[in-house]
């Protein structure tokens, strides 16, 4: 099959939507159904969502940031690092009204795959799905981080001298190297 014939098929993937705002849950679920996703599980808080994950095998999680008592980042860290997390590798798209650069990097450093600033559009959400499907990332475990490789390109394991490998690994998973403004924009654009 040529590149021109490849297409996305979303009808057999499971998506968990976590947002404490029911209007946003309705919107996101409706967009997902229209795009072909048949299996959507909703949750209104992080604790409920984590319980749902024990029996709903989510292939993608869409999570809002601003919630209480656990916020979206708390939930992401639970999924990534809790001993009883059923799938720490699940791709996670974070939706948020937060748009500041530091927020995007904070989400990235918690282990989010993609960030989508609200207000959202059907096209922007679809593009985030396409990005996750087209660019599966290896995961990195360091002392301070567990999550998807934070470099936008998949460069594979670092090569070269020990110092160069250490720098590259730190960039992929360690603290200290942030996204460039262009990378932040590419994470957020429609």
């Amino acid at each position, binding site marked *: 099959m040529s590149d021109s014939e490849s297409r996305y098929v979303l009808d057999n993937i499971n998506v968990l939507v976590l947002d404490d705002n029911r209007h946003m849950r309705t919107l996101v679920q409706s967009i997902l159904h229209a795009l072909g996703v048949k299996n959507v599980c909703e949750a209104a808080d992080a604790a409920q969502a984590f319980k749902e994950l024990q029996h709903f095998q989510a292939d993608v999680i869409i999570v809002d940031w*601003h919630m209480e008592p656990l916020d979206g980042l708390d939930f992401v860290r639970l999924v990534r690092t809790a001993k009883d997390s059923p799938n720490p590798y699940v791709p996670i798209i974070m939706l948020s009204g937060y748009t500041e650069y530091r927020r995007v990097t904070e989400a990235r450093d918690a282990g989010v795959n993609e960030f989508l600033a609200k207000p959202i559009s059907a096209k922007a959400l*679809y593009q985030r799905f396409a990005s996750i499907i087209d660019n599966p990332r*290896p995961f990195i475990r360091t002392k301070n981080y567990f999550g998807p490789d934070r470099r936008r390109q998949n460069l594979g394991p670092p090569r070269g001298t020990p110092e160069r490998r250490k720098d590259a690994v730190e960039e992929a998973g360690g603290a200290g190297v942030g996204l460039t403004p262009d990378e932040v924009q590419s994470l957020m654009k429609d």
Partner: protein
Amino acid sequence: MADAKFIHPPNKLRKAKVGTGRAKLDLKALQKAEKIVEKIQEEYSDWADEDLAAFEDVLGTLKSDGEEEQRAALKALYTLSLDMKGQGGSFGFRMMSEIAARLNDFVAPRDVLSKLDVDVVEAHISALHAIYRENVRDDGGKMGTALLIGLDKIVAKANARSQK
């Protein structure tokens, strides 16, 4: 060398694509999704009524109640404005997102509100009512621009006052 490990988990989303290479977005599915969003926008008017009523409740508390109630109201205002910032434009009311974003930026760094600050909050809430009542769906044109400039001016005044 950093103590780090690369892990290659199984790609469970392989089933979400047929064929190899980069796929194009299914435009029909996207059009369907966008039509659904338009339909939901019609329901948004009920939801916006609820949210605007919640803003009024919070404003009432900020104007009259004790310090503890005001702190709780300020926290509620932060959440309401952040939610509306995210929702408004998602449902076709771009100006509501813009105004709510400004309101959220205004209250975010504040633990308490002066009387002038409360006036600024009230101005933003009044603007939200006006935009919604007039069903302003896009950037509001000249009126929208003038409204945002007006809000920015009173915010600047309040910020300058609070720094003294």
